[in-house]
Every structure is written in C-alpha cells, then in structure tokens.
C-alpha cells in the first residue's frame, strides 16, 4: 500500500516519487521549473550539518531545499 508522505519526512538515502506540490502557483511553478515535476523520482542525499536544508538528487542534478519547502512536496514511497 502506497502511503502518501511529504518530502521532509523522507529519510536520507531514500528515494520516492513526487505525486504533487501544495501551495500557491508561483511557488509551485518555481519548484516545477527546477525539475520537481509530478512523477519524477527524487532522492534525499543528506541533511546539512544543522539539520536544515537537505540535499536532493532530481533529474540528475543536486539541489538544496529547506524543510519548509519540502513539507509541501508530496510523495509516494518507492520499494
């Protein structure tokens, strides 16, 4: 059973699929333009030393997102 979760709950080293982004359109569009598109697989690489932000791998490149933004990105875990 695929349980939905948000990106900030993903543990480092794990991967999941993006199923949607919450929030207003400009914010959503910004994330979309950086490649955080529905259906895309995202990997959480690591947390910064002070636990925020975190490093992710998406579309073959590395990106840093704050917990605040990650909370609005909804995921479906992958096996």
């Amino acid at each position: 059973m695929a349980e939905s979760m948000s990106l900030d709950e993903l543990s480092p080293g794990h991967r999941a699929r993006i199923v949607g982004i919450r929030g207003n359109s400009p914010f959503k569009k910004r994330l979309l333009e950086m490649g955080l598109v529905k259906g895309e697989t995202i990997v959480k690489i690591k947390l910064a030393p002070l636990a925020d932000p975190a490093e992710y791998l998406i579309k073959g490149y590395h990106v840093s997102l704050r917990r605040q933004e990650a909370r609005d990105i909804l995921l479906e875990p992958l096996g």
Partner: protein
Amino acid sequence: MFNLLSKIEAAVPTPDRTGRPGQPGQLPVLTVALAGNPNSGKTTLFNLLTGGHQRVGNYGGVTVEIKEGRLRHAGRRIRVIDLPGTYSLAAFSQEEIVARDFILHQRPDVIVNVVDGTNLERNLYLTAQLRELGVPLVVALNMADEIRKKGQTVDRRALGRYLSAPVVPTVGTRNKGIKRLMEHILQTAAPPPAPPTITQIEPSSPPAAIHYGPEIEGELERITQCVEEQTAAAAASQAAGGPLPFLAETSPWWLALKLLENDRDVLEALSGHAAAGALLEQVESSRRRLAALYGEDPEILIAERRYGYVRGICQEVVRQTAEARMDMTVRIDRVLTNRLLGLPIFALLMYGTFWLVFAAGAIPLGWLESALGFITAKIDLLWPAGRAVWLHSLLADGVLSGVGNVVVFLPNLLFLFAAITLLEDTGYMARAAFLMDRLMKWMGLHGKSFIPMLTGFGCTVPAILATRVLDSRRDRLTTMLVLPLVSCSARLPIYALIIPAFFAPEHHATVMYAIYLIGILLAVVVARILRSTVFQGRPAPFVMELPPYRIPTSRAVLLHTWQRCRMYLRKAGTIILALSIVMWFLTHFPTLTPAQQEYYPPVERQQAQAAHSYAGRIGRALEPVFRPLGFDWKINTALLGAFAAKEVFVAQMAIVYAVQDDSLPAVSTAPAAPAEGRISMDPLRRHLQAEYTPLIGFCVMLFCLIATPCMATVAVTRREGGWRWALLQFWGLTAAAYLLTAAVYQVGSLLQIGTS
C-alpha cells in the same frame, strides 16, 4: 555560406539594429546573446568568444548585470551579450525579466543557448521557452567531454531536428567547438529575420512542436484569435490605443500563451490598453475552464507539459552507453558537506581566506603605503616653498591621502576577490550557502547572504558587491542595508585609539569583543525588523542548485578578479576623489588670517585652524544635537571626517588636538593619514583621558559602529540598490546610532557608570 555573405556585403549599408549607422562598405554589427542556465558554462564561452574585450554594465537601472563584449569574425563585427543565467523565462526573478526583455526588445540577431549536456533535461526547459519565443537559435551543447564521462551519448542531429536549431558540441574549458559555433552563428544570422508585422500575422501555430494537449491548445487558439481580432480592431480604429504590446516582437500565439500562464510582466504591459478588457475576459474564462477541468492552474499545467515535451526529447536523444563512473562531486561532498566535518572545514576555509586577505595582503599593502609616502614626501620636497600652498595641500592632503588610502587596500581586495572568484567558480560557494542556511534563516536571510556578511568584517564595500550572489532582490537589499553593522576593519583604529585610553588592560579584549558582538546582534535585529516591515512576505523559496565541482581555468579566475578590481579602482578615481576634495576643503577653509595666526601660540595654532574651518564650524553647530550623546564639537568634527572613511576619525582627532609629530612639515596635516606613523597615539590618548569619561569613549565607539556608513559604502549601495535604499541605510543607521548612543549615555550618566 560564402554566397550568402557576399550577397549581404554587396547590399547597401544600412543602420544596424542598435541604431548606430554602419560604416560604408561594412556589414552591420551582429548582436549575439548568450542565454542559459546558471552553471551551464555560459560565462566561460562568453570569455572565450570575446577575450578580454568586455565591459560590465547594469541594465535598465536594475542590479542585474549584463556583460557585453566585442569581436571580429570573418570580417564581421560581432557584439556578444552575456545574459544573466536563468532556469526559465517566466519573469519570476529579476534575472529572468532582464534576460527576456533583452531578447524581446533588443532583438539580438542570434540567441546562443548554452546547454549543460550533463544535465540536459533541466537545461532544455529553457530551450523550449526560447523556441516558443520564435527567436533565431543556435544551441551550444556544452561540457561535451563530461557527457562522455557520465557514460552517455547525445544524438545531436536528432536533438537539432526536435529543436529545429543547429546543435554544436562545445567544451568551453578547453576551447573546443568555438569555431564551429561561430560558423553556425553566422549562418543563422545570415537571413535577417524580419520581425513579424501586424499585416503578416501567421496562423496560430506554435513555433515548436510542444504539444500542450487538445484542451490547452483549444484555449490557446481562442485567446490567439481574440488577440488577432483586437489587433485588427485597433488597426481599423486609430483611436484604440495602438497595437497590443509584444506583438511587434513576437507572435500572437506567444502573447496568448503568456496570458494563459498568468505572466505578471505581460499582464502589466497590457493593463490600460484599449483591448485589455475583451482580451482579459477571454483569458479569464479560458483559465477558469482549464482549472475546473484539471483542478490545477493553467501555468502549472503548461510547465508540466513543457517538461513532458523536454523529457520526451531526452528519452530519444540521450543514450546510456557505459557504466557511469563514480561521481567525483558526490565523493568530494562526502567530506565537504559532511555532518561532522562540513562546518569545521568551512570555518577553516574562511579563516584561510581571511588570513590571505589581511595577513598576506598586508605585505603589498605596506609597499603601496611606502610608495604613497614616498610620493607625498617627494612632492613636499620638490614643491617650490611658499608657492600655491593651497594647491600643494590639496594634492598632498586631499587627493593623495584620500584616494591613496583607498587604493592602498587594492592588494587586500585583490586577494579577497580572487578568493571569492575561486570559491564561486569551483562550486564551493553553493556548499557554503548550504551549510550556513540554517543560521542565516534565523535572520530572515538566505544561506548565500553569509559570504557578504563575512566579507563585511574586512570592508563593507566589497561585501556589498558580494551581495550579487543573492538571487532575490529583497534578500539582496536586506543584506546590503545591514552590512555596515558588521564592524569593518577601518573601524579598528578607532577602537584601538579609544579602548586603551579609557579601559584597564585586562578589559581591552572584552570591550573589543563586546563592540563586535553588539554589531552582529544589531545586524540580526535590523534584518529581522526589515524582513517584517519593508521586505515582508514569504521569502523566496530556497531552491538552490548544488553544481558539480569544477576546476576553474586560471584565465577565468584572473579575468573575474580583474573585473572586480577594476570596478573598485574606478570608484576610487571618481566618487572618492570628489568627496576627498570636499572633505579637504571643509577641514582647510576658511584659513586663519595672518593676524589671527599671530594671535595663537604655535602649539594652539592647529586647533584654532581646525575650529575655524567649515568642518569645525559644522562641529560646533552640531553641539546641541550631539550633547545628549556626550559629544563636544571636537568629536563632532572628527565624526564628519569619519564619513569620508572611518579611520579618518583618528586622524581628525589628532588634528584637532594638534598632536602632530613636530618633525613633519606643517602642511601634511593629512586628514586620512594612517593612524600609525605620523601621529603618535599616546599624547592623543592623554588628551582624551583628560577631557572625556570612559562612558563618552564607549559612546563614541558605539556611534562609530552603528552610524553613518562611510561615503564609499553609501556610494556603492546607491550604485547597487539605488538612491532610495542608500538614503534609508544612511539615515536609518544614523538615527539608530543616535537613539542607542543617547540611551546608553543618559542611562550611564544616571547610574554613574564610567563617568569618572
């Protein structure tokens, strides 16, 4: 190609697009703009194309830089523009607006889209948007060597077919593919693209084969039709407010797409137009219909479809042919952004940078200072005695000491700029922002604000220039406005003069530490206040690419360092020169008459002159204002000097108290002379002890810490942010300093702390 070129050469010379008339017998200047994602190697290609022949200019009054360079190729004069690096053309950030405006309004002959081949999918998102604009496009598939290292191949012919644009593989760092790129630029430019005029509107077909699906495309068609109807109506009735915006530059289809995407910039341009009402009604109904159908705003749908199109292309043209080697960047980051090691390594690197700037930079600084002293001494020696004394004084005390004392810091800045360039070009800067973001968030700022803050301990001016790394204008302005609170090294001489005069040796370090700490705390408080008042609103999402580590070419590092230094020198030659002359005038005029000079005994003559000068008069006029802070006219006069440069405070106090080294000629009462050397500090400290209380001493330091950023800071804030913010910074900080210092002085006097 030869035929085409000779045909154009035979043509009658016409004025080029930039409006300058072409010289007889010459082809018009070709304008080529480079567009691409940040970190796509765009600037490296730009440097290769233009060599050192480039200049940095601010575009349209905003802070985003546009670099321009010129070259000649195959007999053609070519102007190359390096547009700001963007991920999109959505008019979301300042950079995107500048890039899009340039493409639309300046109509470059060719756009070279620099694409990072190792990150094709995200890079092609921008390409898709450029295609939609319908501009003449050449794609530079950059980092072609790294694609191979990733074990991939890119079928560039197929890619070119999908994008209907030539695709040229390049390796910017090794100067490969530039010649072919140049050939394709000339080929693409050869048939001059006629801008679509209202009479020759094409049927509503998208310029590229992006399929948005029947629903979206149906609505797009409806809006396009509406645009065309309104255009026809406007043409028929002259009174209707002229043609619609953007149509001179692009197609009705593009305008329809942007309207459906709810593009802020396009909507703004349309507002007030006669056709806006009918058009926006259609757009609104289309947006509502799509939103109801998909449960999502059209701009999101469009972005998703656009990515879908790009992903489709990538699946067709990218092949994984070999096992990818272990990513070097990931391995490096295992250490550099390690949870335990990351911060200590960062601290060490920053310490190293500062050591380089201040310890290593002090050596050439010494040379320059000696050179400056030598020149001043030579002038003193060679100047015919008693002739044009004022001119001598202006040269020695005004120009040489004012401009000279700014120029002598060039070695420090050279090291600083080199270090910043290295940190940026290797990719470490993004990691520094990643590591520090949590701390900076607490100030309402962004991880990238950390570097300017740190630089601010050295000098506020390069720190303000370093805020250019920030993407959002609000972040940039907030950082700029609080930067003067980070105590710069020019304030050190003030503390070094005052602390030993009033505090016991065992407390020296504590007081110094306290002053720095007060500055940092105030910076935090002010940043938070600014964030909740002037710059309120949800902060821009912190979505920051962590680019792969790259070894920068020494050429690029030298070039970028030089560009930054040149800007600093230009400032020294213009604004600082002017203000130095003004300060010199204020402290030297009006002069005492010979009779007045006779009246004062020689030891008092200088103080009398200082009191008599405009600066002295201003200082006295300010006495009632500054009395609540415990300052007298002498301190006021010195504060006036501190506006020229903070360290001038010390020299100015020395002039007022006439503790000049007697062995020096009287004329070199250099207001900006270095605190050491000419002025012996101990007599001055004894004067201070005799006249002021430790409380006043502390208040002077506090005031100097907070108030009136020096004129160089104000000048550079104006340049980078505009007058409004420079004035807010100046008056805001001065007011804060006044209130805080007054409070400390009054409370201190009341409780009799440090009053004896």
